[in-house]
């Protein structure tokens, strides 16, 4: 019968499952991405050596790197790095946990959303730095106030992403869950959670970026260790190469943590049927 032959002999070969070999384009991503920064660094170095840039305002990259190297050699670098990373990690963890929880509750329960969301949106509009004096007053100038400040920064993008992600889950998919009589909890676990994952990752990456921003604020305002402290220290002692070293380290660390998150996202979101690359935000 024509029907059986049409359907039982798939003309298309089944798609290869598992990770495909990286395409030629992907292999070139790293070198291409580094092209512009490398060119700018080279230009900066050349201009600095030629004396076109004032060394007391904009020292050469080689001097900045030498400063980093010096800090690494004396062992001073690592406590600064570790402390800043630790603060970001703790603040990110706290902010993400709270943001996910509240976002899920307000996303899923209309009454809670009507109660909580206006308040949270109002709080969101307070500029980040305005929190600093208040937190220092409440929690002192040590670790707690810093971690809480970072958590506040991370909280809002994650909260927003989860709440709106849940609101935007395709009703058609939820109906499939209902047809199979999934309980409320099962619906959340098997439909809402995976469906919200793409939006969640956007929220996480934004949150992480804000976390790095807030750690600078926290450390500028009162720390004796950390990359932000180095920033202030460089300014106080009139050493621009220290300031730039701190900035460079922030950039590298921020980029690396973001890249890790992005890589995780790509892995978990490979199923997306989108115009761009699946899993990128």
């Amino acid at each position, binding site marked *: 019968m024509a029907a059986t032959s049409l359907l039982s002999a*798939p003309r298309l070969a089944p*798609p290869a*499952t598992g990770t495909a070999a990286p395409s030629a384009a992907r292999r070139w991503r790293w070198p291409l991405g580094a092209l512009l920064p490398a060119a700018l660094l080279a230009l900066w170095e050349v201009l600095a050596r030629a004396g076109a840039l004032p060394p007391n305002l904009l020292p050469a990259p080689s001097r900045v790197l030498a400063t980093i190297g010096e800090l690494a050699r004396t062992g001073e670098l690592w406590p600064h790095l570790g402390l800043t990373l630790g603060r970001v990690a703790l603040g990110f963890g706290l902010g993400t946990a709270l943001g996910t929880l509240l976002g899920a509750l307000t996303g899923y329960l209309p009454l809670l959303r009507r109660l909580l969301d206006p308040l949270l949106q109002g709080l969101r509009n307070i500029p980040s730095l305005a929190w600093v004096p208040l937190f220092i007053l409440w929690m002192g100038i040590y670790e707690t106030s810093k971690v809480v400040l970072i958590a506040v920064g991370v909280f809002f993008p994650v909260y927003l992403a989860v709440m709106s992600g849940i609101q935007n889950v395709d009703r058609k*998919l939820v109906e499939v869950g209902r*047809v199979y*009589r999934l309980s409320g909890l099962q619906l959340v676990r098997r439909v809402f959670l995976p469906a919200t994952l793409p939006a969640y990752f956007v929220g996480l990456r934004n949150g992480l970026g804000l976390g790095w921003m807030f750690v600078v604020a926290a450390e500028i305002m009162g720390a004796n260790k950390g990359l932000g402290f180095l920033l202030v220290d460089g300014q106080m002692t009139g050493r621009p190469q220290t300031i730039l070293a701190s900035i460079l380290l922030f950039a590298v660390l921020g980029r690396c943590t973001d890249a890790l998150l992005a890589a995780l996202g790509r892995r978990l979101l490979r199923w997306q049927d989108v115009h761009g690359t699946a899993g990128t935000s």
Partner: protein
Amino acid sequence: MLQLDHIGKQFDNRVVALDDISLHLRAGEIVTLVGASGCGKSTLLRLVAGLEAPSTGRVLLHGAPLTGPHPAVGVIFQEPRLMPWLAVAANVRFGIAHLPAAEQARRTAAVLARVGLSAFAEALPRQLSGGMAQRVAIARALVTQPALLLLDEPFSALDPFTKVSMHEHLLDIWADARPTLLLVTHDVEEALVLSDRVVVLHGHPGRISQTLRVDLPRPRRRTSPEFQAWKQRILHALEVEAAA
């Protein structure tokens, strides 16, 4: 086995979608609801699926009133509605997660073979064509071994060639366990190829205007004069109601 007892449905905005619909389906029957767009046929199907409740009247399955989605009722929607993050096999298993793993695997493999997609068990929905995705949706509904299968314009999004082969395929599969089928479509030929009975609905508000018992022997050939005569009969019934 399915009884619709004076079903009425009115939505919040006072639109009366269905008015006094009564219908009885025997086990193993294939019944199709035909009507123009907006006549309420999909609403009626959703009531039987338990996704919404009737405003008046009752839906009785095996004599018992339906209060929501029922394990013996399978639904195939107009879109495949596959979970995009699950591979084909995982999608098919979606509704039988409460069964032991071995049973799940056995049923899934059997039903995938039945729809001709065994080779695509680990493919993602985004890698499938429309027809293939709809076959996965059919597999997902069948794997629960439902006594009643509801199909809401299941092939309307497919091209004519795929549609024809899907009709043959559906009848083929139906012949296995002979579930009761309640189909909704606006494609009159589709209704004729598949059904034992064709119920003509006219809308605003939705009412049954005619029920026609199709006595053509199976397999039905679209090109036969009897088939075409039936088609004219149904088209006429639809037109008459549209003019009314």
